[in-house]
């Protein structure tokens, strides 16, 4: 069941990334906006998802694997980020390459933290409502 969930999630995540990369053009200055947005969404979502299933919902392992490891893992990517950065460096766009790295990494981690806190807030809110009633 785990293996099937992983395959289904990975298939959907990969195709969604492929379609979004086609749909979101790089910015006029050459910043690879598609990969950036994809990785941002994925970081926010995974931070939220892995936290909410710890506190709020108990889901089967296959759902955790399919959605987290399969879908989100295949949707976001590190290799494209690396190659795009090297391409910017090879074009001597050093400040743009640095911006791309910092925007990817720092905002990615911040969004993962945001996802984590959103999930915690939802969990605490439910608990407060429970205690109030």
């Amino acid at each position, binding site marked *: 069941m785990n293996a099937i969930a992983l395959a289904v999630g*990975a298939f959907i*995540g990969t*195709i969604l990334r492929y379609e979004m990369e086609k749909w979101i053009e790089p910015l006029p200055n050459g910043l690879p906006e598609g990969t950036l947005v994809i990785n941002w969404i994925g*970081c926010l979502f995974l931070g939220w998802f892995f936290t909410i299933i710890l506190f709020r919902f108990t889901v089967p392992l296959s759902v955790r694997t399919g959605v987290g490891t399969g879908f989100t893992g295949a949707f976001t990517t590190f*290799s494209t980020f690396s*190659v795009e950065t090297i391409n910017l460096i090879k074009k001597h766009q050093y400040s743009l390459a640095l911006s791309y*790295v910092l925007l*990817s*990494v720092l905002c990615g981690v911040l969004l993962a933290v945001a996802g984590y806190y959103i999930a915690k807030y939802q969990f605490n809110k439910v608990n407060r409502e429970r205690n109030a009633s």
Partner: protein
Amino acid sequence: MIILIGAGGIAGAYCRYYFGKWVFSKRVTLFPLATFIINISGSFLLGLLYSLHIQGDIPDWCWLMLGTGFCGAYTTFSTFGYETIQLLEKKKIGFAFAYIVLSVIFGLLFAWLGMDLG
């Protein structure tokens, strides 16, 4: 084409999943070694494929299946972000910082190597 890209993605995610399991079974470390190795090796492979693709040495379907599909799904950014915040939560600030910096430096270095080899 969608089927090819998706198949490559499934294969990539399987490799990531099972490699992660294997590393985890060896010993539990503070450093997220599995994702680290995956992201670096995947950057190298995509760099290689990218060069071959740009030079027209491999057909388009090959680039889409192995590059967009396999390498794209094999490497991951979301787990990298999540593992970083897990380290921060455990107050392992130094490890979190090292994980980020080393992932980026080696990822870029190996992507460059792959591109130059291709």
